[in-house]
């Protein structure tokens, strides 16, 4: 099977997609094995809390190594399209802010700020549109859940 990228042909040969993936899984498996050693293992007739995690981690280790070894012919890591990573990081940042602020700043304020950020900064929509959307959504979803469905949503210091 001819390799896709000719330019990074030589450099990409060592760090193929599957090798990275398989390697990552293998590392995670070793981590789990390491963390399980604090739990009692038990025996085959009476498995302890560590038994199944260790068995699974061993399986994962084997699978990860298999993927890495068989992954010689997959495209190099460089060919992966991570073009949207900045966007993704920004979105993740907004969500993380939401998670942090949900119980501290209250639901409506947090969602308002997060949406404002997403629409205003990330998507570069006009600020009026952003504000209207953010206020509408924050208030609207709050009403839907808190008043109609009676799910208690956290209120922050400003009563929001």
């Amino acid at each position, binding site marked *: 099977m001819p390799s896709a990228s000719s330019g990074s042909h030589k450099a990409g040969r060592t760090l193929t997609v599957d090798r990275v993936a398989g390697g990552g899984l293998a590392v995670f498996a070793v981590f789990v094995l390491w963390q399980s050693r604090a739990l009692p293992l*038990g025996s085959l007739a*009476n*498995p302890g*809390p560590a038994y199944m995690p260790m068995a699974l981690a061993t399986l994962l280790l084997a699978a990860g190594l298999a993927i890495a070894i068989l992954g010689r012919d997959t495209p190099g890591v460089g060919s992966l399209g991570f073009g949207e990573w900045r966007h993704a990081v920004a979105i993740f940042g907004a969500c993380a802010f939401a998670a942090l602020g949900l119980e501290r700043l209250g639901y409506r304020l947090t969602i*308002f700020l997060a949406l404002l950020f997403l629409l*205003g900064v990330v998507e570069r929509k006009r600020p009026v549109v*952003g504000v209207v959307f953010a206020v509408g959504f924050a208030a609207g979803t709050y009403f839907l859940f808190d008043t109609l469905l009676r799910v*208690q949503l956290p209120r922050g210091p400003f*009563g*929001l």
Partner: protein
Amino acid sequence: MAAALRFVLLAVLGVLVASSLAGAQDAFPSRPITIVAPFPPGGVADLTARPVAAAMEKVLKSPVGVVNKTGAAGAVGMQSVAVAKPDGYTLLLALSSISIIPEADKIFDRKPAFTVDQFAPIALISADPTVLVVPADKPWKSARDFIEDAKNRPGQISFSSSGIYGTLHMAMELLSHGAGIKLRHVPHAGAGPALTAILGGHVDALASGPAVVLPHIKAGKLRALAGWGDKRVAALPDVPTFKELGYPDAEFYIWAGLFAPKATPEGVLTRLRSAVRDAVNDPDFKAAMDKLETPIAFKQGEEFQRFFDADARRLADGVRKVGRIAP
């Protein structure tokens, strides 16, 4: 860009100004009270909490809501109230497991999720003794038969429970220690699966709250051998208590009580206590509990404290005796 920023700031300011800031606090309660039920909906805690909330709402003339905060056999909900603001607006409807969980944490050398002295007890609402049930097709006709058989075949008779160190498990453990028998424990993920297991004949015994098993006893699928209470269960008058049979250590109640964070001011606590006392006497509440076949066992103040301490001590002892199950 600067114009946009100004717009955003104005908008935020506008929202803040528009929102009504909380007014000055006057008499308690001036806001809705939340009772945290640390178990999933449909369970004992939940079913007790809702009538209590409804009745208290009538007495306090202020909304009282129930929130289910589940997880870790009740630890999540209990912990959330332990660290909540002690202003009387967050209460806990706890089951007897409140005394078990910190002990279990201790024997695993874990930092306890909460400790019992992080709570101020308000009142006991119900206390159901557990009953020992076996499938109707088993040969044991009385508790004595069961215990005799268990002594002859140590570790052969199996029982299900709602989870290790759970209420149903601890009840059985108290019996085992008191009667000197050894049973085989098959933990399940909750009281529902534990009941299903015995109905399917996959285990030999179960310690259960009476309300849940009554229909099955009446239908002839299960047989009740004895109860863990001080007195016989009203709905099962022919079923003796373990106390009567000579095993006074086997006393266990699945009780439900209302708690507040420890630092709640005394005035607020008094108000809450009197509210609960009135709520328990409310006819609607009584009717609701009747439907659930759960007798109201109201205790307050000194009485509750004594009951709670004795129960906590018993359970802590039991947990320590069980210790860690070494595989």
